């Protein structure tokens, strides 16, 4: 078993490194790791940067990070899957995040979400088949004073009604 593992491992890394050499974004990511002196405890920061550059974390990217930080891939994968913020699947062109914090919930954000789900024909956490829209929910974005809040492509919109939300995503799908 051991020889197989030893034989397999360099191959996977080789593949990733070869792949990585062609993409400038890997270079940027490596510079970012260098800024953190390739420290193990910078893993979450590095993954944030990786997701910012690539949009999502695929297996090759995680292997690259693991190799560069000299961490076991299991550790990198474990961290990437533990935190809600990291996504291992590609996201749609636009994102719509409905806040489901208590204040928003009490003021009817569930209805907003249901309206969007019905219109886009996807559930929260999914992406439309044409990759136009990813629908997500947030635990609380701290905008409780203007509840219910919905984030469209990173911009928070205050006091949303189902009509407002449908109007907004109507432009995308």
């Amino acid at each position, binding site marked *: 078993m051991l020889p197989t593992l030893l034989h397999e491992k360099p191959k996977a890394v080789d593949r990733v490194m070869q792949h990585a050499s062609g993409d400038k974004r890997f270079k940027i990511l490596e510079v970012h790791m260098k800024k953190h002196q390739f420290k*193990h405890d910078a893993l*979450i920061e590095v993954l944030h940067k990786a997701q910012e550059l690539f949009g999502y974390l695929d297996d090759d990217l995680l292997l690259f990070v693991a190799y560069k930080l000299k961490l076991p891939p299991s550790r990198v994968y474990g961290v990437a899957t533990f935190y809600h913020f990291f996504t291992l699947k590609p996201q749609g062109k636009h994102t719509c995040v409905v806040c489901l914090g208590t*204040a928003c*919930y*009490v003021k009817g954000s569930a209805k907003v979400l249901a309206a969007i789900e019905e219109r886009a024909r996807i559930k929260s956490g999914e992406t439309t088949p044409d990759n136009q829209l990813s629908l997500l929910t947030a635990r609380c974005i*701290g905008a409780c*004073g*203007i509840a219910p809040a919905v984030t469209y492509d990173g*911009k*928070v919109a205050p006091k949303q009604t189902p009509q407002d939300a449908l109007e907004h995503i109507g432009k995308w799908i």
Partner: protein
Amino acid sequence: MQLDDLNAIAEKHKSSRKKICLRSCMSAGCMSSQADVTKKNLEAEVKAQGLEADVEVRRVGCMGFCGQGPLVGVDQNGSHGLWEFVKPEDAPAIVGALKGNPCNVQRGDPNHPFFAKQMHIVRANGGIVDPERIEDYIAIGGYKALHHALTEMEPAQVVEEVTKSGLRGRGGAGFPTGLKWGTVAKSPGSKKYVVCNGDEGDPGAFMDRSVLESDPHLVLEGMAIAAYAIGADQGFLYVRAEYPLAITRLQTAIKQAKQLGLLGGGIFETPFTFNVDIRIGAGAFVCGEETALMASVEGKRGTPRPRPPFPAESGLWGCPTLINNVETFANITAIVSRGGAWYAGIGTEKSKGTKVFALTGKIKNNGLIEVPMGIPLRQIVEEMGGGAPDGGKIKSVQTGGPSGGCIPAEYLDTPVDYESLTKLGSIMGSGGMVVMDDSTNMVEIARFYMEFCMDESCGKCIPCRAGTVQMFHLLEKILNRQATARDLAKLEELCDMVKNTSLCGLGQTAPNPVISTLRFFRKEYEELLQPDPFGPRGNGEAPKAGLATK
């Protein structure tokens, strides 16, 4: 950097101030309604109307009245005014109003009970200083407390002052801060850390976000004083990734403080060195728990571990670590500069000082309030909050988020302090206060929180991992009118078990919303129950015929 240099910066900045100041709120809430465009328009309009010599437009942090935002404040001839619901196109009218022209933008009342009943320590600079300019903070006396601590006090004296103040942890549990600092200071080891917990995960709470966005230097100064008191030279600020504005403002603040030598090596030409790094969370509620937070700072999965050893003895990388909440650190500057005895004079016997609450939900006046401890809940909800909107009746107030409970309307006269809230089965928590009116179904609220805890359980210990799922399903069953009294009994049994056997705070408090709604709103649960086809358990009654087929 010496005290003279600090004073020189303050003087220089003060002299550059203009007669009239328009303060434009640039906090996340108002920014979402184009406050940034409003500010630009105001600046352009001031130029256009030729008022540049007298009027300045300042970017400020949160003014608190978020529900009425975007807000623009004005300081003119020593009086303060406020405009509400300002839109970018209102800029000409507002600037015109400075000259006495009529203006139809809605005016806010700075003497409204929402403002008048407040007492500001933590939020003293919110809505006044520019969070992205360190000079603004220095001009109102910033970093003087740090200078005072470094040059005129021994570390032990700082700890003593904090102990004297009676300050308790603002993260929710209410552990005496002075005691914690003393323990870390006494722990052996040359390397110690200060960690600021800005992982404000409770849904319905946004005090920490507001403090970090409006006054980042206040927190940094508090952390530096803490580091001096316990003998640490490295700090970490853990902030949620959901607060991008807070993160950028903190980064700016740290950079500026370093440039002026207020962070880094040899602060105020003393041997004291302190560096702060920002750690960005990645969306895990459990990371608000201190041991999980430390794992996350180390770049690992944020799972808690059993205590003891407490972080004060063995924390980050095995070194003694001081972990406090954002709001706790924000109180330190005032305590050091005005003395622990002054602080201890505010509040009740066991809960000192003030507390910031995020007043949200079904209430007229939404926003952030800072009130002295011990204020009756009724004053907060009815006078400051203005009661329920649209003629609704307040049914209960939820405090403490998913770890807290609901306080029914008949207990509104309860003073708000750690002990009184605990007695009612709720907790102070980090400060979320969600008001619910009579249209809210309490069982649904319990299910909402249970779903939250179920999703956020890290999965390390079984009572929390499996228990929350079972409780959630039971609540679903009750809401779907499929449950019997037997299920309710099972739910109560599970609550007890999860509460007493979970590893960390998340699991131990997860049943709280159910327990508290059961305590005060049991009727709502019972109304949803179906008759038990097999008869109530254990009383020997025969099963009621025919019900099973119904």
